[in-house]
């Protein structure tokens, strides 16, 4: 089979999906499986690595190579894989707790290294698999079994964290908008460095409709700030509002007519950071789309070729040469 003939079915494993009915992870899985055939990468050259959590189950359902690893460590495992094999297309699927709590260290370091992998954060703002405790992205005041009096912690924003870590591709999308999700994932797939995509994901069981402000049609019309490279940053039911530059520096909401033009390729991530900081991620308005998409040196680029080249003809003579290095003497 040539890669041109691939279909969605080629990326569906025979394992039964086990998420709760209505879980946003179904839509994410379907979008990814729908996108993979068009990328022209054979299933055997694609690898999915996940951590632990509901989102971590993703790996079992995609008919490529895959490893369901341990909680938070998938980016590290993926980095090692890339170190040995830059000929593969490597995807990491993570939850908000997996990526930002236990695995936060690996996330920021793989981002600053720009390891060529696509990392999806299925953000349901809750710990799903462990049955509903706050996650690092839960809002202040959130009541859960571990926070009966409401969370006293400020949430972490994945987009801001990624931008601050030197990420070269940063985007946000939402599970209920398949077209948007596919478009963002497609751009991520084509990004040569590390791409991180936050996917607002519903957890009907433990955090139902937490993203209703961007998924309900009427509310979304008011709350979704669409980021499109080269286009004015406008939003509002009639597109009447815009993100505008303040005379003294900084951004604010203002008139559509004064809206700034979104430049995802800007070398300086300051504006992307500022756009993300406007509004309220929990209630809107909130920006969706590609915040940043820039080129930077890719970690381990060409390493497979170099390793291969250095290995040509390597044999016993090289071992002996190694063993005989330095001062030697002979005992008769």
């Amino acid at each position, binding site marked *: 089979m040539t890669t041109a003939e691939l279909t969605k079915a080629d990326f569906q494993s025979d394992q039964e999906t086990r998420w709760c009915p209505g879980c946003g992870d179904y839509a994410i899985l379907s979008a990814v499986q729908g996108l993979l055939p068009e990328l022209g990468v054979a299933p*055997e050259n694609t690898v999915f690595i996940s951590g632990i959590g509901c989102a971590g189950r993703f790996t079992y359902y995609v008919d490529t190579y895959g490893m369901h*690893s341990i909680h938070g460590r998938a980016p590290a495992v993926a980095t*090692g894989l890339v170190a040995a094999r830059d000929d*593969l297309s490597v995807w990491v699927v993570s939850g908000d707790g997996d990526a930002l709590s236990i695995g936060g260290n690996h996330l920021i370091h793989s981002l600053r290294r720009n390891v060529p992998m696509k990392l999806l954060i299925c953000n349901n703002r809750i710990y799903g698999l462990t049955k509903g405790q706050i996650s690092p992205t839960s809002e202040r005041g959130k009541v859960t079994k571990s926070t009966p009096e409401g969370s006293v912690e400020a949430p972490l924003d994945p987009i801001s964290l990624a931008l601050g870590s030197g990420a070269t591709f940063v985007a946000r999308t939402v599970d209920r908008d398949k077209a948007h999700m596919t478009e963002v994932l497609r751009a991520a797939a084509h990004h040569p460095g590390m791409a991180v995509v936050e996917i607002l994901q519903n957890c009907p069981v433990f955090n139902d409709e937490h993203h209703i402000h961007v998924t309900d049609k009427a509310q979304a019309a008011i709350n979704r700030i669409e980021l499109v490279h080269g286009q004015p940053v406008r939003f509002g039911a009639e597109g009447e509002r815009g993100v505008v530059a303040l005379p003294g520096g900084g951004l604010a909401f203002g008139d559509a007519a004064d809206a700034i033009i979104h430049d995802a390729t800007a070398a300086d991530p300051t504006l992307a950071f500022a756009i993300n900081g406007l509004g309220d991620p929990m209630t809107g308005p909130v920006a969706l789309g590609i915040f940043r998409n820039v080129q930077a040196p890719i970690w381990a680029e060409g390493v497979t070729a170099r390793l291969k080249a250095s*290995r040509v003809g390597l044999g016993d003579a090289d071992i002996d040469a190694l063993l005989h290095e330095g*001062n030697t*003497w002979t005992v008769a």
Partner: protein
Amino acid sequence: MTTVERNQSGTDHQPEERESVIVRFAGDSGDGMQLAGGRFADATAMAGNDLATLPNFPAEIRAPADTLGGVSSFQIHFASRDIATPGDSPNILVAMNPAALRANIGDLEKGAAILVNEDAFTKRALMKAGYETSPLDDGSLDGFQVTRVSMTEMVTRAAEDVEGATTRDIQKSRNIFALGLVSWMYDRPAEVTQKWIEGKFAKSPVLRDLNLAALRAGYAYGETAELVGTQITVPAANDVPPGLYRNVNGTQTLVMGLLAASIRSGMNLVLAAYPITPATDILHELSRRGGHGVRTIQAEDEIAAVGMALGASYGGALGVTSTSGPGMDLKAETIGLAVMLELPLVVIDVQRSGPSTGMPTKQEQSDLMMALYGRHGEAPLPVVAASTPGQAFEAAIEACRIAVEYRTPVILLSDNFIANSTEPWLVPSAADIPAIDQNLTTEIPADGDFLPYARDERLVRPIAIPGTPGLQHRIGGLEKEEGTGNISYDGPNHERMSQIRAGKIAGIDVPDVEVDADEGAEVLILGWGSSAGAIRAGVRRVRQRGIPVARTHLHHLNPLPANLGEVLRSYKQVLLPEMNAGQLSKVLRAEYLVDIKSHTNLQGRPLRAAEIETAILEVLGA
């Protein structure tokens, strides 16, 4: 260019011949004692002696000058016969300052020689070392042969002919002066050191000439000054096997072992590590070897490092991670994952004194229990332990072989002593290195699906790496159904899989132990890891008393050699010396129900021949 000539005629004294000598260089950590010792060891190796060295560094990079905490030392034991340890008590201590004297004097026996840099015994330095009066004058060194040399003055004078040398450079060459003097005292060839200086300072003629002048001055001082006493010579060793030798430490050999295994197996080597004493030099050494198909990664922490190594293994490379105790704690979860996945992984633990940060630069072998059992669930894995700097080469290859062929994480135990001490090494030949067969599955099975958790007769599973068409499959930390590898929470399946994983490890082909036994021996001395040298030397001492003894050493801690139980039961007494609180003895008592006597030591230094001798005599009631 000036050269140093050994004056064989000119003087009328004949060097006195000795069978073995122990020299300890000690000074402030900025005094270059490791360098002086290392050069002395190289010259000694080239002179054909057998030798063993013991570097001892402070944990601090630059402790305040002249304090006890800043003392760094290097001990070398060399002989005209096969030796096993860096020696217990030095015959001569070179003390570059009062703190070095104070920190080391306790290890000397009366009658030993002490060579001090008199110029460093200032009021201030004495005070910092905690001396109220100068030990050089207050009689506290009575019974030792003390030689006082004005080293600072001597190097300053020697530097007069070297144009452009700064005061600081001159001060820093004192170690080379001391090296020259001690080299004369023990009749070491100067050419080796001289060549080294010429190479090292090729780009800086001033430093080259300065250090050559200091070396020459030290040599000349020995020759002319009667105070130094007679020259001592130790003839070349005559009882070591013939062949090509090289002086190596256990870090170099371990790295060569990894490289050899990688070349032999045809697998790319990926080492990921987070810096930690005393394992860091493995990362350093391998990072220079890009040309050998090696990639090294300095990870963000030890968890990432082992994750990266596992990821590389998953991609078909030889994934290795190296660390010490605190890093081992962090890696446990990922090692368990590797047990579950059944992927090759080599985890190197260069043990140091614990718990917690413990004594980072000191010796211990107290991670054995952690290596054997330090994971949740039933997670057995092979454990291999290196026993000497030279043997670390074979141990590394063995760890790689088992990891690759049995698809399992392997813990390779080294330690601070093996990593840093040196010994002459009979250089092996590539042809003698065992083959390592990765044995990847590349074809779609004719009879249907690829079963990633099917088993061969050794219970080993097949591996297909990403990129292999048609064999896509998923692996993970959840329990798997036998054969298919699909997730399974079935109890009986889990029990079967646990037994299969355990059975695979238990069935690994490890060689039987060989026993070096005297006829009629009633006591067996059993060791593991770097206690090998001290045990060998201790046993030799007991044998010299005419008492028969048996000795054997373990390199495989899991699985244990098949004949071990029988060997243990065939002696009236078994003595097990180890540098921990008795870990292996507990394991073996449980395994074989043999009443093993334990000799333990947690003093942060290698075991000594004398304490082994005493322990054996005690066990025998002799």
